[in-house]
């Protein structure tokens, strides 16, 4: 068996190798990346749970170790599926796109090394170290996108730093108090801790790293800016994978340190702390959904949907009963795959058309049908419609909230769910359907190298939607290892206290319905195929069908209702400009090269010296 530390080292050295290869030939470098990540996926798949490795020891009395837990294995396999498939996509994409392909490939590997380390860390400090490696790798990739991407990278790393420093603070507080950092020991000590305040502080501060990373309110603003500007294929990793690192930390802070046992119940078995986190999730769902409806940039739209889905995961995890926790974990899988599919299809569209604005495109389905299919299945899964896998997790979360009687949260999850129909439909209608623009008449479908990873993800979503056992097996083993009652299922039938449903029956019935419709369709006279420009126009002649495409302000009538919403982005912008002007004042006072200022400061210093009689 190959140790994980060896794998991490291979990735770190591989990044140098990849850099050099990519310098020589971009495509070979990208193939190298793909092979390495795919190999890592293979290794991780075969890891045994409970396998432990010693790494090093920085702090006294704390051994930094890797340990394979079910939770880590689940997350790492999802991550590596996404990363390896995106790497496959990059083989073709790298020919045209990032401004520095060699550095891009190298940083992807560094980031992957960090990610693997995060998911297998057995203590808080190791997790932090690898976390920062992953953030570093991804932080350096973001500026390779659009013009504004340098600013985006700064916002990304600052937001991430807020979370990770709070996390680090909690880590050292634990070390000061108990002298240990391993997860099991920390949770054992916390169970005996008399001070409620300390428990709150620890869990909240550790969770804040996850909150920052998975784009939960109030640290959600970076997602839009970063996604809007990051390289297109990298957005798939960013949303499909890096955000899930945040979910992992949230899962740890809520379940490895068992919050339901640590704290007293507040409302039907959920502690107040979890309840607060659930509310943060709720606010994220609301903000994500309603802001996504407004966006005209398709990547920013899905970035806001990532905020909303991060909220779903947090709500599911926060409920902390068997079905809710399972729903949260399942949603991690679903959103990772769906976001990767959607961002890859966008990357393909941008690769061919060179724009991300929804109203600058239209009718691309006639040119890029397979990209469209990927996007379609992706949004069906994202919106949680059967028979894709996305519905299973949403169903679980609904069930969990309903059994707990949390009606307000339930309302908000329904809003998020129905709202997601609205916003995912907007790129569908604006980019893929409708009238084809004249300037896109020559656009072609992307090459098979790009299509293969997209279609693999599509099949995976459909397969898990019909046969969810592989994921459910993982979830059961995670819940067993964390001492939560595992979710019940047999074959394709998933059970809760509220009833059950059978994924296979639903899929079969859908197929039957489709076949009935198809039979009716075939036996009646065939329709005549007409051009897309042959439209009912009220008898009017049109000359520019580019304008006959309804994509600008698609939901304007709805947006008008909340045009004057309060914006946290603006608030942060105000804070930034406040600090900027403070900095300018200081700059003005201290660093200005002018004789009068110089004399002023010297006289002040002399006065102070006299005053303290030094």
């Amino acid at each position, binding site marked *: 068996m190959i140790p994980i530390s060896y794998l991490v080292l291979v990735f770190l050295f591989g990044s140098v190798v990849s850099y050099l290869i990519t310098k020589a030939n971009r495509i070979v470098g990208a193939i190298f990346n793909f092979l390495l990540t795919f190999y890592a996926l293979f290794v991780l798949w075969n890891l045994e749970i409970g396998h432990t490795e010693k790494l090093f020891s920085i702090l006294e009395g704390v051994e930094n170790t890797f340990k394979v837990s079910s939770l880590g294995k689940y997350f790492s396999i999802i991550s590596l599926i996404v990363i390896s498939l995106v790497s496959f996509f990059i083989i073709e994409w790298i020919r045209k796109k990032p401004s520095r392909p060699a550095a891009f490939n190298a940083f992807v590997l560094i980031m992957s090394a960090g990610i693997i380390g995060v998911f297998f860390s057995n203590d808080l400090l190791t997790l932090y170290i690898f976390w920062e490696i992953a953030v570093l790798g991804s932080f350096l990739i973001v500026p390779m996108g659009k013009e504004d991407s340098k600013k985006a990278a700064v916002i990304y790393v600052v937001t991430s730093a807020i979370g990770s420093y709070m996390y680090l603070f909690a880590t050292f507080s634990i070390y000061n108090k108990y002298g240990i950092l391993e997860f099991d020991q920390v949770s054992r000590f916390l169970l005996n801790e008399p001070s409620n305040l300390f428990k709150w502080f620890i869990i909240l501060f550790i969770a804040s790293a996850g909150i920052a990373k998975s784009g939960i309110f109030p640290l959600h603003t970076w997602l839009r800016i970063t996604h809007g500007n990051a390289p297109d294929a990298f957005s798939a990793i960013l949303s499909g994978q890096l955000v899930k690192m945040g979910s992992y930390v949230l899962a740890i802070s809520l379940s490895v340190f068992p919050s339901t046992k640590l704290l007293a119940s507040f409302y039907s078995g959920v502690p107040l702390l979890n309840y607060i986190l659930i509310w943060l999730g709720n606010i994220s769902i609301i903000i994500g959904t309603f802001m996504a409806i407004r966006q005209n940039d398709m990547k920013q739209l899905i970035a806001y949907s990532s905020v909303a889905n991060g909220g779903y995961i947090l709500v599911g995890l926060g409920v902390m009963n068997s079905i809710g926790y399972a729903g949260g974990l399942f949603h991690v899988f679903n959103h990772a795959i769906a976001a990767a599919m959607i961002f890859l299809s966008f990357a393909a569209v941008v690769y061919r058309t060179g724009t991300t604005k929804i109203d600058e495109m239209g009718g691309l389905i006639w040119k890029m049908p397979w990209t469209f299919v990927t996007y379609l299945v992706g949004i069906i899964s994202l919106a949680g419609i059967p028979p894709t896998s996305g519905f299973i997790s949403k169903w679980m979360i609904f069930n969990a909230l309903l059994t707990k009687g949390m009606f307000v949260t339930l309302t908000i999850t329904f809003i998020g769910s129905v709202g997601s129909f609205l916003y995912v439909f907007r790129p569908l209608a604006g980019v893929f359907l409708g009238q084809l623009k004249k300037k896109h008449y020559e656009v072609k479908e992307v090459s098979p190298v790009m299509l293969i990873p997209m279609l693999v993800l599509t099949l995976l979503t459909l397969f898990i939607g019909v046969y969810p056992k592989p994921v459910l097996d993982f979830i059961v083993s995670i819940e067993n290892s964390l001492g939560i009652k595992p979710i019940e299922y047999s074959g394709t039938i998933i059970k809760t206290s509220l009833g059950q449903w059978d994924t296979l029956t639903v899929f079969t019935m859908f197929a039957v319905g489709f076949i009935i419709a198809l039979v009716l369709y075939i036996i009646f006279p065939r329709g005549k195929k007409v051009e897309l420009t*042959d439209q*009912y126009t009220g*008898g*009017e*002649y049109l*000359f520019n069908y580019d304008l006959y495409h309804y994509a600008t302000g698609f939901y304007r009538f709805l947006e008008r209702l909340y045009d004057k919403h309060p914006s946290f982005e603006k608030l942060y912008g105000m804070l930034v400009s406040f600090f900027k002007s403070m900095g300018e004042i200081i700059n003005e006072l201290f660093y200005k090269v002018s004789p009068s200022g110089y004399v002023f400061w010297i006289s002040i210093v002399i006065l102070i010296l006299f005053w303290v009689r030094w």
Partner: protein
Amino acid sequence: MANHERNIWEKIADQLRSKSLWMLHYCTGCGAIELPPSMTSRFDMERFGMGPMATPRQADILFITGYLSAKTLRRVIYTYEQMPEPKYVIGFGSCTLNGGIYYDSYATINRLDYYIPVDLYIAGCMPRPEALLEAFNELMKMIRKGEANGWRDYKENYDWYKSNQIRSLGEVLVHDEFHE
């Protein structure tokens, strides 16, 4: 218009079509006012299964009231060609028959069926709703017997219709909103 040999399915379909006629009315002329009474409680068109439709895609009857200027004739032809087959045209009022009081106008056409095949005319200026309903019943009978074959006629004699259309309207060389 020659009778067309129908097979059994077409006969059944024609029975159905005669009982469910959806209508698109093209009322840029003056006859539109006769439609409300024939739709509402006095004469109630819906008891024959007839009703107004918003788009030509769903319509069976193109109902043209009054005169057609050269500019609106283009729209009528365009709309007619957008309708799915089988489709029927009713010309309402004298203006569609022979130009009516506008027979010597420079801007209107005199005979509609030079340009699109008209299955049934309703003469008069204005025809009353009774005449309208009578015409609809007549059209239903024609459809049931398989005599309302204007749409086949249009397909078979497309060149003739096209040449008439071009003669009256002229070839369009410049494609913009002022010339079509």
